[in-house]
């Protein structure tokens, strides 16, 4: 069974802070060369982390649900710089 998470995220309400992503990968080389498991690409509930196939990871935070999973499960290398978006930006839950 494959799941189209983009269809799910499209139902949510976001106010994207263009040009100011609130989460960033500290050192891309660590993902590419040292991290074998790359669990962020599987466990992020919004699938923001995508493996490019050549070891690199790209991060698009537009659909981020701000849960904090990536910061915590990247405990081997602590390679995620995680902050909340600017006030009023990011995910805006209609039901919560």
């Amino acid at each position, binding site marked *: *069974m*494959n*799941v189209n*998470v983009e269809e*799910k*995220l499209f*139902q*949510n309400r976001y*106010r994207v802070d263009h040009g100011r992503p609130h989460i960033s990968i500290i050192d891309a080389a660590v993902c590419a060369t040292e991290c074998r*498991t790359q*669990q962020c690409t*599987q*466990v992020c*509930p*919004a*699938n923001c982390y995508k493996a490019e196939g050549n070891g690199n990871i790209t991060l698009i935070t537009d659909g981020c*649900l*701000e*849960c*904090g*999973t990536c*910061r*915590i*499960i990247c*405990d081997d290398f*602590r390679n995620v710089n*995680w*902050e*909340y*978006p*600017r*006030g*009023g930006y*990011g*995910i*805006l*839950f*209609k*039901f*919560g």
Partner: protein
Amino acid sequence: MEKFDAIVVGAGPSGNAAAYTLAKAGLSVIQIERGEYPGSKNVQGAILYSDALEKIIPEFRDEAPLERHIIEQRMWVLDDDSYIGTQYRSDAFNKAPYNRYTILRAQFDKWFSGKVSQAGALVICETTATDLIMDGSRVVGVRTDRENGDLFADVVILADGVNSLLAKKAGFHPELKPADVALAVKEILFLPQETVESRFNVKEGEGVVIEMLGKITKGMMGTGFLYTNNESVTIGVGCMLSDFKKERISPYLLLEQMKAHPAIKPLIEGGEMKEYTAHLIPEGGLKAMPQICGDGWMIVGDAGMFVNAVHREGSNLAMTTGRLAAETVIGLKQAGKEMKAPNLAAYRGKLDDSFVMKDLAKYKDMPGIFHANPQFFTTYPELVNQAAHTMLTVDGVDKKTKEREIVRSFTRSRSLFGLAGDAFKMWRAMR
């Protein structure tokens, strides 16, 4: 910049309970919320426990946006395409004042925040608190992401949720470990009100809650849930983040497979999905609890790991810790005492006297036991379902043989010694 008696960071149940109690007592309070309005950043299953809120806003039932009062609780243990479970429905639950409600947090928190403003607190939304302002080891204020946005107060109450960034940046507690939190994902599916009521055999305003464990978490330690709202159902599943990390299963795949389970699919058939959310739930219990107060600061709600995971209780602990923290500050203010750690420690005393610490102490070993014993989530669900299936299939095999077969299935997979060990561990953890 003017100085306040207290700054409350966050407008969830704990933040609102604290700000409301402080403002009601006449203290000058400013509350900072990063969402567009209170509730737009908050996620929960969500069940509201009346007793905690009654102590803060006794007349809440007259005006709060509540979905359904719960009259039936189902506990399911699921195998791949079957479940065995128990069900408790009581007419006593159908007598006002109702004990538990399903709610939609975005609407409920917005209502609660309206009460906080009416009580006189200054509620500032769309503003993210970025750092605590320290004077030596004492917290004197909060830095926000707005121009000249530094705010100062005698005490800062941290109600900023499970991630608790402010306390971490200030070094009050370490980064959360994957084994301390569970990751839950859920969806809200809209159905006509009559369909919800006919499928769950309830009348208007009455609600059903289903708690699930077993194969739906694919061997990971976790549970699923299905709550009935007025014209929607909420369905979700959550597992320990350490298990997610190890198994590398995508949460949305887990949710989709759960929704396809033959026992669940008919209950949500035709539902229109309108929101998909994810949230971390503190699961570490007492052992993972950080320092809860210090010079000029206190922690309430999820930020302080105040969650009783075994009974899935969070919002009542949040509101209670918010209220108790506020009552501590009010007491010190009236006595003219400094908001220093020794004085604020009275907060810990109040918590010890309340159900909060008692429950957390009772289940302090539970997380450890479940961690070490995945069989509670895989083997036993399977054994129990198959046992029921064997007993209920009438195929000419005599009952004695059937019983022997069931006992052998248990001993084969867990051995006599294992079964005894599991029973003892559960007994000791529940004591």
